[in-house]
């Protein structure tokens, strides 16, 4: 049995969590003020994940880049692989919010989607 202290990143409140871990599983979670804290703590001690945000180059648009994100959280150790993959890409303007830029990025099952309009 081990206790880990985490800072919840579910929202900017940053609750201080205390997690009891038994055989790699979270058995007891304290300090969270919402359900997200519990979900985060469980994930963070077993399979830490993140949303990745970055930019992708745009050709022929009002802006040189368009901001993007993964449409769901991905394993933390895949962050750099994803960044590497989207650095190779150029999209043609116009781009709309929610447009899929890359499907199944770095084999994670997550898509890279645009988060801004570029005309």
């Amino acid at each position, binding site marked *: 049995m081990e206790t880990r202290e985490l800072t919840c990143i579910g929202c900017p409140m940053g609750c201080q969590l205390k997690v009891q871990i038994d055989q790699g599983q979270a058995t007891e979670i304290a300090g969270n003020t919402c359900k997200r804290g519990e979900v985060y703590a469980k994930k963070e001690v077993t399979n830490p994940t993140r949303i990745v945000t970055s930019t992708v180059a745009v050709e022929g648009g009002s802006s040189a880049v368009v901001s*993007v*994100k993964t449409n769901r959280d991905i394993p933390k150790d895949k962050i750099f692989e994803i960044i590497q993959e989207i650095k190779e890409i150029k999209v043609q303007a116009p781009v709309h919010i929610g447009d899929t830029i890359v499907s199944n990025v770095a084999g994670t099952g997550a898509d890279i989607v645009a988060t801004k309009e570029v005309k």
Partner: protein
Amino acid sequence: MLNYDIVIVGGGPAGLAAAVSAKENGVDSILVLERDQELGGILNQCIHNGFGLHTFKEELTGPEYAARYIEQLEEAKIEYKLNTMVIDITEDKTVTAMNRADGLFEIQAKAIILAMGCRERSRGALNIPGYRPAGIYSAGTAQRLVNMEGCLPGREVVILGSGDIGLIMARRMTLEGAKVQVVAELLPYSGGLKRNIVQCLDDFGIPLKLSHTVVDIEGKERVSGVTIAKVDQNRKPIPGTDKHYTCDTLLLSCGLIPENELSTSLGVEISPVTAGPLVNESLETNVEGVFACGNVLHVHDLVDFVSQEAKAAGKHAAAYVRGGARHLLFDGEDIPIVAEGGVRYTVPKTIHPQRMEENHTVRFRVGDVYQNCYVSVYLNQERVIHRKRQVIVPGEMEEVVLKQEELKTFPNLSQITVKIE
């Protein structure tokens, strides 16, 4: 001269939410003036996620959050002018502005909402010794360069200041292939949100050196290195603790300052603590019919709270324009809110028991880190709120909720005190 009921200075998160709210509250003649080429303000360069949990119950990126409000603005057919710089506002609410299409022009408003936001503390204001080479940027400038213009401003980076933008940029520059060597913070605690320290520094093994500052910048054409030293309790560098870092870029994330030049020349009274206007519960300044919200009022950590505040400002400005009964209630019975015992300031600064909301949120910041303490509110000498808190930090805005019923019925109420105990 143009005529509008409400002129809103600034088309960032505060201006957008204020405009939408003013419209919802029955005012049709609204004009938003924005100096950038698009609406959305700082949100456009904040491409990271975490915005909107309170407002939309989902986690959005900055541009997505802005787009939600821009959509509402367009749907409500609220007028706005881009690339437009406001250069003066007078007490009779004449706004002088200029842009390339209209030249210099004047607008007569019935009410004004100040929503100009804030700007970053510059190197000049920090008094860092050393040369003045290229390669020194405010964190927000670097953020704009990377996220909107697609340029990486440097490859080996040292960051001074652990404000949120600095932390966010530590991660962003790392993802873009730069090596972020260290984040130095003068204070013994970070000014940034906990989650940003976890997600932006810890995730990437970037060290955070608390009680450290930059004591020298080297390089004549371009930054070639900086020296960082530990500081004592008086924030003075301790001799012998110098450490040299080779780098080509220094980012500064050392605080944000509300941008109140227009407010000051208009005669708006400014708080020396927040550097923003002193406002009553309706977010009205000492100049009648001039309201303030968002980072121009006090620097926020969460855009959600900016939107909430701006919504209130829009509602009150609309009520003022409609000439409702609210302002007839002005009877000198505004109750001052006193910030004591670690509380640096409160917004609002005064509250009127008749005009306030049923449950009125008062926001504040503390001046130091407090553990196992209580947030207390006193009406005169009587304690009415005593809430236990594990930790309160200066980097995160706090709030208490005052109840109208309690204030209205309290005999001879002359002062409200918010303090940490």
